[in-house]
């Protein structure tokens, strides 16, 4: 009884704690507390639409100047924030204890980050980007110029304001509603290493874009050009921390949100740019309101049984079940897909099957254990663009037949049985005759 009451108190206190903090957790993966670092507090008003949309979605924003000496991401080993927005492209060093390592540590502990660079981005921002696999143009003064698909405007003539519409086709990253209007962009471009599987180009420049200093003449070919220039990219680290890198801070600004846009060479004039929709959707993704999967209730048993055995025998028929849910921002919804596969794996997959789903989150597959013994694993490696990666591995040994599980008599061996028994009988008769014949 005493134990029980202690346990209940313990559980109650933990749930109380959870209720109090409301923070990022496995059960509730959406971020709550976000630190916004700005160069200039004026940004708070010039980008207010973006910030208020976040606040409307329930986030607590904490604005600080980037050189505020009191900045700290964690105290006593506890992270104070679940997300970080770096709207301070020109900061050379942060105040307080914050530096590149602290920010990367923040990401490596599973927290999310939005970084907006701009023309003349500081080395600090470039370093953070490089550590995440984003290579901003090394020429400090270069910006993205596009004489092909610039945004038609009365004031600017150097074609650095780009109307980009080369968006990645992904519902999970950018929402299910198509972004009709081009996204206005003014800033620097970056490139990605194609071998890097963790970074994804979300908004690319058009084939006619290049990255150079608009004020000087081009003496050498630009290092970045064409659609290999990425304007906005996202990173999902191996621990599912999410990061957005944008080469333009203005992308998030009220001015761009509201401005009408007309792409050069196109007569289609949009009353409002696609920026607001784009930024809202990408922020939903980065703060885990979308595309966050969890796999629970992994079970396996022999067909016809319910208990989970500690070991299988070769040629057993087994059933494997797993439930997969997606976080919708407020609750866990069943995840429905037809491409979740299971591997029965021992150095290489012996069984590879697609699992079937009941559309309520449960995935089921049944198969026969191969005729090989060893220590196998049930492996579900589910990595899809934009979704958090699921990798389940459950070790299970497979044993050969026991000594009494073989068949006692084999039909093909009947001649041999006959031979041995007839020999025995013959020997008996022979001995009898030999010994007692005279």
């Amino acid at each position, binding site marked *: 009884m005493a134990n029980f009451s202690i346990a209940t108190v313990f559980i109650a206190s933990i749930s109380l704690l959870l209720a109090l903090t409301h923070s990022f957790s496995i059960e509730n993966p959406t971020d709550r507390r976000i630190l916004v670092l700005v160069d200039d507090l004026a940004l708070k008003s010039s980008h207010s639409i973006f910030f208020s949309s976040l606040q409307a979605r329930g986030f607590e924003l904490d604005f600080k100047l980037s050189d505020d000496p009191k900045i700290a991401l964690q105290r006593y080993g506890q992270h104070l924030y679940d997300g970080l927005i770096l709207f301070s492209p020109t900061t*050379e*060093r*942060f105040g307080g204890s914050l*530096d*590149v*390592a602290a920010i*990367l540590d923040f*990401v*490596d502990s599973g927290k999310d980050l939005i970084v907006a660079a701009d023309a003349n981005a*500081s*080395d*600090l921002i*470039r*370093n953070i*980007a*490089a*550590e*995440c*696999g*984003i*290579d*901003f143009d*090394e020429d400090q003064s270069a910006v993205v110029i596009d004489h092909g698909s610039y945004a038609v405007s009365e004031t600017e003539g150097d074609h650095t304001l780009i109307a980009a519409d080369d968006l990645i086709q992904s519902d999970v990253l950018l929402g299910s509603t198509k972004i009709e209007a081009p996204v206005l962009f003014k800033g620097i471009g970056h490139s*990605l*290493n194609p071998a*890097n*599987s*963790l*970074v994804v180009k979300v908004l690319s420049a058009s084939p006619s874009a290049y990255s150079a200093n608009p004020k000087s003449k081009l003496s050498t070919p630009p290092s970045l050009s064409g659609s290999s220039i990425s304007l906005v990219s996202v*990173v999902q*680290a*191996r*621990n599912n*921390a999410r990061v957005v890198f944008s080469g333009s801070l203005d992308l998030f600004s009220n001015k761009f949100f509201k401005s009408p846009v007309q792409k050069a060479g196109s007569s289609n004039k949009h009353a409002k740019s696609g920026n607001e929709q784009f930024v809202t959707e990408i922020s939903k993704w980065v703060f885990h309101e979308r595309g966050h999967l969890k796999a629970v209730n992994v079970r396996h048993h022999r067909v016809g049984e319910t208990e989970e055995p500690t*070991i299988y025998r070769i040629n057993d028929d087994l059933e494997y079940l797993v439930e997969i849910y997606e976080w919708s921002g407020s609750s866990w919804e069943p995840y429905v897909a037809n491409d979740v596969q299971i591997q029965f794996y*021992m*150095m290489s997959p012996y069984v590879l099957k697609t699992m079937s789903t009941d559309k309520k989150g449960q995935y089921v597959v049944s198969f026969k254990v191969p005729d090989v*013994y*060893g*220590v*196998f*694993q049930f492996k579900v490696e589910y990595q899809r663009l934009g979704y958090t990666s699921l990798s389940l591995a459950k*070790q299970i*040994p497979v*044993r*050969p037949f*026991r*000594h009494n599980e073989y068949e006692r008599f084999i039909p093909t061996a009947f001649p041999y049985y006959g031979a041995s028994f007839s020999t025995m009988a013959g020997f008996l008769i022979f001995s009898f005759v030999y010994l007692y014949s005279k």
Partner: protein
Amino acid sequence: MAVPVDAIIKQSPPSSSLRFAFGNVLAFFILLLIGVLAFSIRLFSVIKYESVIHEFDPYFNYRVTQFLTKNGIYDFWNWFDDRTWYPLGRVIGGTVYPGLTLTAGTIWKVLQSLNIPLSVETVCVFTAPVFSAFAAWATYLLTKEVKGTGAGLTAAVLLAMVPSYISRSVAGSYDNEAVAIFALIFTFYLYIKTLNTGSLFYATLNSISYFYMVCSWGGYTFIINLIPMHALLCIVTGRYSSRLYIAYAPLVVLGTLLAALVPVVGFNAVMTSEHFASFLVFIVIHVVALAYYIKGILSPKMFKVAATLVISVGLVVGVGVVAVLVAVVASSPTKGWSGRSLSLLDPTYASKYIPIIASVSEHQPPTWPSYFMDINVLAFLVPAGIIACFSPLSDASSFVILYLVMSVYFSGVMVRLMLVLAPAACIMSGIALSEAFDVCTRSIKYYITSLSESLQTDAGDIVPGNNITSPQNDVIKPDKKEELLKERPSRKNKKKEKESIEKPSVKSKMTKRPLVLPVEASIFALFLIVLLGAFYVVHSVWAAAEAYSAPSIVLTSHSHDGLHVFDDFREAYAWLSHNTEVDDKVASWWDYGYQTTAMANRTVIVDNNTWNNTHIATVGTAMSSPEKDAWQIFNSLDVKYVLVVFGGLVGYPSDDINKFLWMVRIGGGVFPHIKEPDYLRDGQYRIDSQATPTMLNSLMYKLSYFRFVETDGGKGYDRVRRTEIGKKYFKLTHFEEVFTTHHWMVRIYKLKPQKNRIRGKTKKLKSKTSSTTPRSGSLKKNPWH
């Protein structure tokens, strides 16, 4: 041919029956003392160290025994072990010789049922000493069958403390050989006993004893080849008798049937070349038996006709059978021989083709000093024993000679098989010593009796007062037997006598009647023999106490400031068992596999049961590869920890750096991108500044010498290789050191997880941002911490 000993005793005059009874009681007590000696001489390891399982293989046997006592025999039979050879696993029940385990398990169970609460470990530790006492008694029985009680007792004493056997049977050395040597000698005894008596009862016992041997050790093939060889020898030398048939035929039939019952042998008992000799001789002995039978019922003339007919037909059939046999054997890739057996026949086979066999030190050919170390003075006594066995040559003594010759050959191939030589050498030396004692004491006795006769004094007072009398009783018996035995081959002797008539009269005396030496010479000879024996005892006790009682998991060293104990292995295994997850996989070279599973209870990739060469080669390749490749190999095997043994700090020579070339060779045998010359500078294996870059970048070098330079202030002096290491300062990028034992003998590393992020190509910008610079180095560290 040889008259049974019992028969001789019965024939002896009734007046001396009391004396024989006294002799038997004495022999019984001597045997008891021999048993105590055999047991107690093996307890040095327990007294000097502790009651602990030794070395590597015993740990596996111990673990299996634990499983057996906990789960019962059926679960043991069907045990699929998922903690070794990850991810392949190992079917223990079907791949292990169960004799030792079942023996110790039975002993434990019996003790439990008698309410003697010994732990399984204690039983395992003391199994070997107990069985060496049994082996000594079996030696007594065997030698008694050959040359009588005196030789038997001497041989038993010698075997009880022969260093070669002690090395494998000290308390804690819980290995197959511990019980197998007893089974081997006992099987030979029963064979000789059957041969001498022609009793089917003993023949059946012989098969059962052979079955126990098959259960216990792979060395049973020695028996199943030696006994057919002896049977063939007897047939060829015209010594065929029905006793030979009874001794041989039931053994082959019953023995093979029983052997096939042992899961690890199974159909090998009829399918592999190691067993073919017995079947061939089985056919031959039947043909010979038939020939003798026909010879008995036909007249000599008719027999001659029949013989020529049968031989001509038989020749044709025989050629056909041999051709089929050869074709069958040749169709298998290794010609039906397993690698270990092939390396027995061709000593260079293993080192040429199978590095995994050659890499084991006990599979190397022995050096001459190791003969002196392991059998000591017996090596000089053996030839005398052979001569004694030739006069007269009986079935039994010819068997012992054959046993000796074969075991000498095999011991020359593999150090390990010195163990098979030891009983043969003991038997031979026992015979030699006994004969020598016999001759000398007889001479003295002859002198005394002749003296007393001449002086007409009361001889009775002198003889009982003499200390030598008591052994005389034992010695006299074979003496008489010999006289009886000698009557049989007297024809040959007579021929010899005729030839040696011209030779000095002393020699003719020798052959004619019991040899009598001058009393001074015999007293001197006795003194020398006792001295020789004393030397042997001193050496054996020294070997038991100093050379062979170290458990190898605890090391000690004496230095000027006292005794140092190195308990690093158990420290490391304890660390593993307390600080890692139950399902974590630990990679190490295969030597430490059994210990890791038994002591740390962690899954290992490879272990001392080297059944899968590819798997071992994978680990060898990983150890020989640069860090990144090694990480990938280990990660693909789900390895969490890597364990290396390093002796450079304390001068422990059998560490992984010294074994490293074998890893390269074994790895390169399967994965050809690992090439041995890349690790050698001008054919020399070195780790100093002259070492090749491949060597210095290999994982083994890095894991062994990581931070080593910190121990002696920047020199990095390796005390095993006696040189400064080549690369002193380096960092590990894919591994992190998690534990190093007190004397640095075991170092455990953890595989770092994959990086959380992948860096871009942009070089680090260090310019204006001063605050980032000091921390930038730490970015390379494990991102998870």
